């Protein structure tokens, strides 16, 4: 990771985020207004896409179906979440079975293989607009930089969102024999900020 090319401070004290066991502090603070070339921004994007398309992220980044997926090395063949689960329009399963019925709220980490992953917040799907499962790099990039479809966020806002959402933190420390998302949370945040400073370039412009 070309962290040295990214003008993102890694030295600021941790924010007020609640950290799960084993987590380390991250920061989204900028040092000064730097410039990041489009080429470096596209390199950062390619790493962001590796993260966004990884099963730890994409399995719960599904569209309006509200049906999470089971995919990746620990699941064998790709298939919808077992038990006929759908999170509904609420995205938390309120219409059927709440995600939190099985994905309980805990600070105790994840050690048991095949048990439902848990963090210290209620489990939920990403918004339907952030429909990443099976999508191309261009499709995800276009969504993520479109304020109409990304919750009105700047790249800085996206980085801060990453800093504060414990379900996202879980992707890098999933436990239970699950493969973590690539790179690290801090590297991913740095990539998002670099991509933003480069003007949020996408592969096809």
């Amino acid at each position, binding site marked *: 990771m070309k962290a040295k090319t990214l003008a993102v401070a890694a030295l600021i004290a941790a924010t007020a985020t609640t950290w799960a066991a084993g987590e380390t502090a991250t920061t989204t603070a900028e040092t000064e207004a730097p410039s990041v070339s489009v080429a470096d921004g596209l390199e950062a994007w390619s790493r962001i896409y590796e993260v966004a398309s990884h099963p730890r992220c994409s399995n719960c980044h599904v569209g309006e179906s509200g049906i999470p997926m089971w995919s990746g090395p620990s699941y064998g063949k790709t298939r919808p979440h077992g038990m*006929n689960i759908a999170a509904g329009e609420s995205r938390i399963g*309120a219409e059927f*079975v709440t995600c939190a019925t099985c994905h309980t709220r805990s600070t*105790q980490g994840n050690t048991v293989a095949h*048990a439902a992953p848990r963090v210290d917040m209620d489990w939920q799907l990403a918004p339907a607009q952030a429909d990443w499962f099976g999508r191309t790099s261009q499709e995800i990039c276009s969504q993520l930089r479109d304020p109409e479809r990304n919750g009105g966020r700047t790249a800085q806002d996206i980085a801060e969102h990453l800093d504060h959402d414990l379900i996202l933190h879980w992707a890098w420390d999933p436990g239970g024999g699950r493969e973590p998302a690539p790179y690290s949370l801090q590297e991913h945040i740095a990539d998002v900020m670099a991509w933003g400073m480069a003007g949020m370039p996408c592969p096809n412009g």
Partner: protein
Amino acid sequence: MQIMVNGTTHEVDVEEDMPLLWVLRDELGITGPKYGCGIAQCGACTVHVDGVAVRSCQLAAGDVDGEVTTIEGLGTPDALHAVQEAWIEHQVAQCGYCQSGQIMAAASFLETNPEPTDDDIDRAMSANLCRCGTYPRIREAVRSAATKLMEA
């Protein structure tokens, strides 16, 4: 630690990571919730925490944040919960191993979705396995209970 179950506060001396199901069954002798799979795939251990269905095999004792209700506390023999009444009316149970989890799941489901379609019922109750295959009767009972609760 202290834990409130079915209206009674209990002092239990257990590890923080002991599953609630173990606390209920082995420490408190409350055996309505059943052990099936231990990994949230069968629903036999379902209880309520503050009225919401939770798989007690997945909830650590140290993470319990609210009042626990098991099948023993859902209704009484003289005043059954509408779902329990419907279970008897439709003679749902065959072997009965899954039914406390089924009933607790259904009671919680009807709190948040009081007028479910059959598809909603199937979707919600699919997370509770019945090895006897009583699913058609489960659907009928949940539909009946929904009607009763709406009329109440």
